[in-house]
């Protein structure tokens, strides 16, 4: 092991579902890897805001890399999920034709699926369709049944990948934004420059007596001050350092050690004895100041999602540009869940898969997405027109939705490019891999993409020595779905009987578990994604104060183990 080496074997830029899947796959070998993420948690970009469907890939374009990796990844993830406790429900999907024209398009869709190797599609006549989905709106003429389509938890998936990777020794650098890349003398090693540190603390809700921010995060055991300070790179546009998806908890930035999962007792604590964080000037600098630093790695993998074109440009690429396509979604109350059994898909158009209605593994009903090209890769805001168009579509598909409460609205950005397929290539000469343009299928394809990329890297010369003692086992994640028993239904110990979030029935024990996990949350939204707390119908009316109090106390206590 060369854990203490100052040059990593591989640096992965981006800890979304694709980056963490690659990290988890590389972690099976004896490699020194670092996973770099600009946000304060893994899986906070496109990975967290999507339709949460585990696609079979039946509707992919045959012959594309996406088609191949989707089919492979979907199968891999299904197995992985059952081993790791990632909630998955095989609800099947019904692709519903509402017009005569759409009805005539169904056989071609089935034929396309067959070319993708998916043979299980069956036509469903209108009468049988209404038998299966009696609450479906009037006017459906027929459907295709895709029995393999499933719903999945988009939060647990990258968390499981990252947990496995970190447990195996991969170092995760959170709040770290890559700003530039240079090849050092001889061209054997890349030097990545980055800025790091928490964003401006929110401070709007600060409990009396809570410690104020003491300064920037301390470089833990910082020992390799290398190279001159870099000026901000191309990604460092003013204001763009804000991670759009990372909603900071009240007080969450107050703990200077919260960066990189402080206190989780990981031997592999990211920057520990390895990173080369440089603290400019006083260590007591303003907490808004971001620290600059650099690290060196022999190989770099660009899995930066919405930022992947900028990272690609650092390596001389100019083959694609990210064209963020925003999708707005509406989540309905759990009381709407009995309205449907399967995922209800529309007949896709050339441009988009259209608006679907699907159950979620948390027992809600999801409606969306819209498809709108936006310029700003950070713009995950919802719009009045987007939400009203979704409601109109939803009420046609499932009229009874109109009587149910909306629990949440959100938007995600698909990392689309001008190309119809994934933009994956490995440049052996420069020891650089680009994994971009994953659009909306990254969750389903992630493990297929990772397997493919690692195979390509091996062919390009990356040595993959077996890990001494073999790969670490697949982690057992807290199960936060509705299909299996919830902790409150077992009450293994008293704290699993104390329900804190009433709408989602999340107990104090589960929040404590999240706080002491391998990847503890760095803000209350991290608690949300690990436990479902505050995700329910009241959106915090009852529990937000209590959850943030538990979060703060847990952090202040240095997270008891």
């Amino acid at each position, binding site marked *: 092991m060369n854990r203490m080496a100052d040059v990593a074997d591989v640096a992965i830029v981006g800890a979304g579902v694709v980056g963490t899947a690659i990290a988890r796959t590389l972690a099976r070998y004896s490699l020194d890897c670092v996973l770099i993420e600009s946000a304060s948690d893994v899986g906070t970009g496109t990975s967290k805001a999507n339709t949460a469907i585990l696609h079979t890939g039946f509707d992919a374009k045959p012959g594309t890399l996406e088609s191949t990796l989707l089919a492979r990844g979907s199968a891999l993830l299904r197995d992985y999920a059952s081993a790791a406790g990632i909630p998955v429900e095989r609800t099947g999907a019904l692709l519903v034709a509402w017009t005569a024209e759409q009805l005539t398009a169904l056989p071609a869709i089935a034929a396309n699926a067959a070319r993708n190797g998916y043979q299980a599609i069956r036509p469903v006549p209108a009468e049988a369709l209404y038998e299966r989905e009696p609450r479906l709106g009037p006017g459906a003429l027929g459907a295709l049944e895709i029995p393999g389509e499933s719903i999945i938890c988009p939060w647990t998936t990258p968390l499981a990948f990252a947990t496995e990777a970190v447990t195996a020794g991969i170092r995760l650098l959170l709040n770290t934004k890559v700003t530039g890349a240079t090849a050092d003398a001889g061209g054997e090693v890349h030097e990545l420059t980055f800025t790091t540190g928490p964003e401006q603390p929110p401070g709007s809700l600060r409990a*009396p007596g809570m410690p104020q921010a003491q300064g920037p995060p301390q470089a833990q055991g910082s020992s390799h001050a290398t190279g001159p300070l870099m000026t901000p790179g191309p990604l460092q546009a003013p204001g763009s350092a804000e991670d759009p998806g990372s909603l900071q908890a009240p007080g969450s930035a107050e703990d200077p050690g919260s960066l990189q999962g402080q206190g989780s007792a990981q031997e592999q604590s990211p920057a520990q004895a390895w990173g080369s964080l440089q603290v400019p000037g006083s260590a007591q600098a303003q907490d808004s100041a971001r620290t600059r630093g650099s690290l060196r790695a022999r190989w770099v993998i660009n899995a930066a999602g919405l930022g992947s074109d900028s990272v690609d440009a650092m390596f001389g690429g100019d083959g694609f540009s990210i064209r963020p396509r925003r999708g707005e979604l509406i989540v309905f109350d759990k009381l709407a869940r009995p309205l449907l059994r399967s995922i209800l898909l529309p007949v896709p158009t050339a441009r988009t898969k259209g608006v679907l209605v699907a159950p979620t593994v948390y027992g809600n009903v999801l409606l969306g997405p819209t498809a709108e090209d936006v310029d700003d890769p950070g713009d995950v805001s919802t719009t009045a027109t987007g939400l009203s168009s979704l409601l109109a579509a939803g009420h046609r598909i499932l009229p009874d939705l109109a009587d149910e409460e909306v629990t949440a609205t959100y938007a995600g950005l698909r990392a689309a490019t001008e190309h119809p397929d994934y933009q994956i290539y490995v440049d052996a000469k420069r020891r650089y891999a680009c994994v971009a343009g994953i659009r909306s299928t990254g969750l389903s394809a992630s493990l297929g993409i990772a397997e493919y990329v690692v195979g390509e890297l091996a062919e390009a010369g990356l040595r993959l020595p077996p890990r001494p003692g073999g790969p670490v086992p697949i982690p057992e994640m807290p199960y936060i779905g509705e299909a299996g028993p919830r902790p409150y239904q077992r009450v293994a110990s008293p704290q699993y009987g104390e*329900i804190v979030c009433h709408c989602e029935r999340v107990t104090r024990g589960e929040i404590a578990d999240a706080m002491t996990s391998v990847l503890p949350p760095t803000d209350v939204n991290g608690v949300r994604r690990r436990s479902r707390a505050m995700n329910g119908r009241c959106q915090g009316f009852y529990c937000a104060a209590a959850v943030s109090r538990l979060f703060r106390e847990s952090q202040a206590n240095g997270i008891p183990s």
Partner: protein
Amino acid sequence: VSRIWDPAAPVDVLIVGGGPAGLAAATELRRLGVGKVLVTDREAELGGIPRHSWHTGYGIRDLHRCMTGPAYARRLVESVRKAGAELRAATTVTSLEPASASGHLPSAEHLASAEHVPMGERVTLGEHMPSSEHLRASEHAPLDGHVAELTSARGRERVLARAVLIATGCRERPRSARLIPGDRPTGVMTTGELQQRVYLNGERLPGRAVVVGAEHVGFSAAVTLAHAGAEVVALVTEQPRHQSYAAFRIGAAIRWHLPVWTSAVVSRITGRGKLDGVEITDTRSGVARFVECGTLVFTADWIPDHELARAAGLDIDPGTRGPAVDTTLRTSAPGIFAAGNVIHAAETADIAALSGRHAATHIAAYLADQASSSPASSAATAHAATRPAHTRPIATTDTRSVQADEPTDITGPAETRPAGTDATLAIHTEAPLSWISPNLIRLPVTSTTTPSGTDSALDTAPPSPPDIAPPLGRFTLRSNEFRTPARLEVRQDGRRLAVSRPMRLIPGRPVHLHARWLANADPTGGPIRVSVAASRSRTGA
């Protein structure tokens, strides 16, 4: 004489929710001599919303005192303790089903650790129905009552309750349910969250704040914000004027300098990470402007916490969205009652408490009725109507209730409702009225049925029996619009039963309709319709 409750014995009444309605009901049930009353609340402390509502004005109508929310909550809890009901905080009722469906008895092992609460010197139902006899009756299928599953730090327990009161209250619709577009920053919350942060957590909120809504609770939120160090920029309401009482508003305006922006909506929320501000659009001109703020509080727009009611399969009223209740606050399931803001979201705490007290009277009567039935008739009593014991007895034991809220029932219902049965009629509201509570009336069908649709019913209708008066002898309604003056009109099958005196309709404020007209309703007729009467000039009447 005090004795220890047998923890394995069924409870007489399970009250779900320890807010004003549930606590007031518990005290009243004990005062009426009901034996074992168990109140559960999912929060760590009992008392409900008043726990974290620190302004004064609580307790006026029920306790005839004026106090702050926390003082009021403490007093209600203290009353229940003195009355000898069992209180269980931090305990969630995670399911509720009829005992006959469940087939489960409470597990003695689970309940063995239950708190033993000494009981005062009182006549209890236990004397009418010894627990051993009741347990024996319970062995017969189908069982009477309901089985609730309680989840707490003690584990999961199943409790058999002879009657249940759902008093789960209400909450404010959050930003998402109001479909306000924009970013999803921190700093956006409801009044409930705000009050808990400020009064329970002691958090400070420096900086500018905007409050959405100008009902009382909007002013309450503004006062809380001011206490937390925020500068309240404005209260924003889409209504053309505020909806609070003048005294409260003027007091708040002078003390805290609170401007109210009317005919205005928050049309967009801006801020990545934390809130930067909101776009506010004037609904008359369509002009939008950006208002900087770090805190945004959504107030009012109440929705009942009806999830347990729905999970238990109770009929839900489309107007209130809470369980449908008749004037005795009985729901569609025998033995399950509902009171407080789950049936009228939201009234003030004292009104909720009086609602709970009203339900208690009828629950006690229901239990007395049940106790007088023999165990052998348990199957029949599963369908028994609730009837307060102090009223004149209904002649026959055939107490099948008849639902008459479907329009199709209007034709030829007389044959289906023999004398001695009860008829349940739905009360519907017409726009701009949004809901009425209670929303069902249950009337005894007398021996001479009156043809519906004629005014003759006015002469032959029996006097209003006292046992079916709603809480405080009146119905509570809401209007979506300002109307001044307006008269409410009550009709059945086109026949006018009553018309109110002129009143002011204000969105978010209660409108009361006296229940005297109940005497005029025809139990064999169709549903009751309440509307705003056409103005005199237009009808020419």
